[in-house]
């Protein structure tokens, strides 16, 4: 496995200057130093412009210039945690919290993806779930009970769209940025697989599941502090039925990021649940 080409390293060093001292930073140069970038540059049809799939032959990781120093990341983590707790509808703050605190969990998640054949393919091809890449009409036409149909139903019932996900702004490594982006985009599919709506209770349940699955601190914090906003009845349902089920499913299930959902729209939700290892949801109204 070839590591970074010698040509590229000085470029990286020039680019990785401290942003905090008021010195002008060189901008606008892509850090894609692969000598054969023109030739081996491969784009998956669903890849977003500027997110070229890494050259599989060289298999190196590119550092993204996130433009934020460690101190800034620490301040962001603290600030976004406070704001997200105070106003859970600030989705951008939840996203920032996930990015700034995920430095330990994201590499582990990436390694789990690499060690699984389907996950590895996802890392290579870098599919993106957005309205422009999904054929909504086709998915809507699929029979009831299939992943595609239920996903579209979920989007329409809860009036959400996959395009509202913020891009990762504060993750320095490009591959890890993709991993967290994939996690965000798969979140709606989690709702579909777990059968949870987007109200506060449903979100907390999904967070518990994701906390067990991914170990991201943002999920753990969300799972721990989310219930603060619930009333007593919901808390009871949460504690007695939903959380135990979510935790059991999370432990039993294989890594949910290792499923290439875009190739499984026709599969039924039940069979996908069984394949991944998610237990059927309890019969409570969420």
């Amino acid at each position, binding site marked *: 496995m070839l590591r970074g080409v010698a040509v590229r390293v000085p470029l990286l060093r020039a680019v990785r200057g401290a942003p905090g001292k008021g010195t002008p930073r060189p901008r*606008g140069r892509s850090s894609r130093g692969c000598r054969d970038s023109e030739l081996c540059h491969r784009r998956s049809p669903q890849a977003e412009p500027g997110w070229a799939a890494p050259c599989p032959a060289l298999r190196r990781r590119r550092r993204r*210039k996130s433009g934020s120093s460690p101190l800034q990341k620490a301040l*962001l983590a603290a600030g*976004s945690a406070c704001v997200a707790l105070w106003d859970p509808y600030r989705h*951008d703050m939840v996203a920032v919290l996930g990015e700034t605190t995920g430095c330990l969990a994201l590499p582990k998640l990436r390694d789990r993806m690499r060690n699984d054949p389907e996950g590895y393919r996802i890392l290579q091809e870098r599919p993106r779930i957005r309205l422009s890449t999904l054929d909504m009409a086709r998915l809507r036409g699929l029979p009831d009970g299939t992943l595609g149909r239920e996903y579209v139903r979920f989007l329409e019932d809860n009036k959400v769209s996959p395009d509202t996900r913020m891009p990762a*702004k504060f993750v320095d490594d490009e591959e890890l940025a993709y991993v967290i982006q994939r996690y965000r985009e798969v979140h709606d599919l989690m709702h579909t697989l777990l059968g949870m709506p987007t109200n506060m209770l449903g979100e907390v349940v999904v967070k518990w599941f994701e906390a067990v699955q991914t170990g991201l601190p943002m999920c753990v914090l969300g799972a721990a502090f989310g219930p603060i906003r619930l009333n007593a009845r919901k808390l009871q349902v949460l504690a007695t039925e939903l959380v135990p089920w979510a935790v059991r499913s999370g432990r039993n299930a294989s890594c949910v990021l290792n499923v290439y959902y875009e190739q499984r729209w026709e599969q039924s939700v039940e069979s996908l649940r069984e394949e991944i290892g998610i237990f059927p949801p309890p019969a409570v109204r969420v």
Partner: protein
Amino acid sequence: MAAGLCPGRALLSRRGGALWALLGPARGLAAGPETHFGFQNVSEAERREKIYQVFENVAEKYDVMNDSMSLGIHRVWKDILVHKMNPSPGTLLVDVAGGTGDIAFRFLNYVRSVRERQLQQKLRHQQNLSWQEISKSYQEEKSNPLGDSQVVVCDINREMLKAGKQKAQHLGYSEGLSWVLGNAEELPFDDDKFDVYTIAFGIRNVTRIDLALQEAYRVLKPGGRFLCLEFSHVSNPLLSRLYDLYSFQVIPVLGEVIAGDWKSYQYLVESIRRFPPQEELKAMVEDAGFLRVDYQNLNSGIVAIHSGFKL
């Protein structure tokens, strides 16, 4: 271009990005000479467009952000500016880049309290008034509390003016206040109109400062005063390092956390570093024709008030 500011979807680049890329070399000819936008080098037209977008984005949270970034100290700075101005009732003020109206409201409060004190003084000096004369003077106070003072708030950005008007309504300011959309480099006013011209934290965003100063000279009456409140250069090395650390590490984070906008506040701190220091600005003010130009440093140079007279 603007994509260099953030590797993700840069808000600033989205609107103009594709178009500017298409124009390519033609851009250089049409868009004017090179200038700066923060630490980037851009053409003048591009800079105007970008700054307009910055203030469009920040308008709603402008006051909240000012308070959190300066820990409320910006209120003291603006109070000091108005005290230095020491307006008497009957003064006509134009507050350029006045946006959300901070200076205008302080001016109105000041002249109102000066006027009240004037009327009280008048009453005290005339001890043997009849009750009719006393009640007439009360009516006078009620009918003309500002003593014919007026302030015109002029700003280039519609969103900022909108935010300012809403604030005025909320706080109950209506009399003696008008809002005008205009460019500091080309003011929509006649010559020799105003007694005082102020520009608080706005001249940094003007692309051609010399033109703005010339316009200031033009619209002021002879004897009129020019006042500029702006971020400036800190000479004390220790304070300068702390200030830089705070500016570059904390302020963009505050922008992201409170307003969801990192890039605008990154621009803010970079533009402060690119602005001319105290002596240079003093020379520019003198070049425009002002006399008795002087400056006062606040907080060791974090902010400076420049003052000049049209004589």
